[in-house]
């Protein structure tokens, strides 16, 4: 069974729910435990939420990840928003730009196994995360 690539356009808060539901389904199909599927769905929810909060719209791409003798899921959140001026600051636990919880990026990093972020002011943001099957 091959799991293809799923793109979810993020334009409204309803898309946040959609993206995480699709993420959970894919994670389950890929053989992740329900606990891990919950972590993945939660991470997707936060990433999609960031897109809405800071860029108004963007996209979440879900696909299977293939590594050396292991498989997992890859989630890529992209947007053409204002970008993050100081990434190091954003990744420091407790950082907040708007309201109580800020970007939640450190949290997303804790939920997943691999975390990569590219962002430039005026050029948008790409957050790519992966989780491997135990």
């Amino acid at each position, binding site marked *: *069974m*091959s799991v293809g690539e799923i793109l979810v356009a993020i334009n409204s808060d309803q898309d946040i729910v959609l993206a995480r539901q699709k993420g959970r389904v894919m994670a389950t199909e890929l053989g992740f435990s329900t*606990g891990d599927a919950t972590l993945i769905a939660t991470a997707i929810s936060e990433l999609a939420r960031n897109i809405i909060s800071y860029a108004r719209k963007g996209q979440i791409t879900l696909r299977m990840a293939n590594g050396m*003798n292991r498989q997992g899921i890859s989630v890529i959140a992209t947007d053409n928003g204002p970008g993050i001026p100081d990434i190091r600051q954003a990744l420091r636990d407790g950082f907040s730009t708007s309201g109580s919880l800020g970007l939640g990026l450190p949290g997303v990093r804790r939920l997943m196994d691999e975390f990569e972020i590219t962002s430039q002011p005026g050029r948008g943001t790409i957050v790519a995360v992966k989780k491997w099957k*135990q």
Partner: protein
Amino acid sequence: MAKRDSMPTSIETKRNEEPSELLRELVAHLRQNRTQLREEWVVRITETRLLTAMTKEEIFAEATSVYDSYVEALETEAFEALQAYARNLSERIIPRGVETHEVVGIVLLLRDVLARSLFAKYQNDFKKLNRILDAYEPAANRIANTVAVGFVQERERVIRQQQEAIRELSTPVLQVRERLLILPIIGVIDPQRARQLTEQLLRGIRTNRAKVVVIDITGVAAMDVTVANHLVQTVEASRLLGATVIVTGLSPEIAQTLVTIGVDLGKMNTVGDLQGGIEQAERLLGYKVETLAEPR
């Protein structure tokens, strides 16, 4: 000079066959001679003393299905399906004690047996033999690779499962009294084990409807920052399930680590030793040791 185009396009006589046509031709040959080639293969397996853990009948039964899958993979190039088949097969034979070198060995033997049969068939047409082998070899090598990888993946999965089972056995969550759980942690905890403990504990809280949990870390020598964070998260997650956590056996070193990561020890429920922790838990649960009323 006769025009090629006007000749009947029978596969045998066309000069420059497509690789896929060649594949189809050799697949047909392998299917036609299935019984004989399979038998030859089984003989070679026994000769080279592979699959000694299995009886001849078992080898023959598995050989039939492997042979057919091999030829099918040559024909359809559906390597994902083949890998799934290999994992499935491995699931059956790993408990029998079959090892990686045996699986790789028998697949290579099959590749050789089939190759020799191709040599024999086309020995009079060297050019054709070369073309046939050009089609056969990459496919056969890919098959060997796919099967080996499938086997190794399955093996690794089994090992991980066994490790998981061992870890679960070695960290029991004990229900001592109604609504009270005790989690004694002994030895070295790595982040993976810490995470597993947390998940086990949370499930235990739900199953046992625990309202108080005593986590005893008397037996833990040292704790790095990651694991200390896990401990804090465990306390917080337990609360979300309505359970209070009491940590007992906190050594000065570990207390220091917790302070370093910013934990307010004043807010964490800690008691010196396990016994004291259980007593406090009982108080929290309302198990009061009543003093007898004075006789009036």
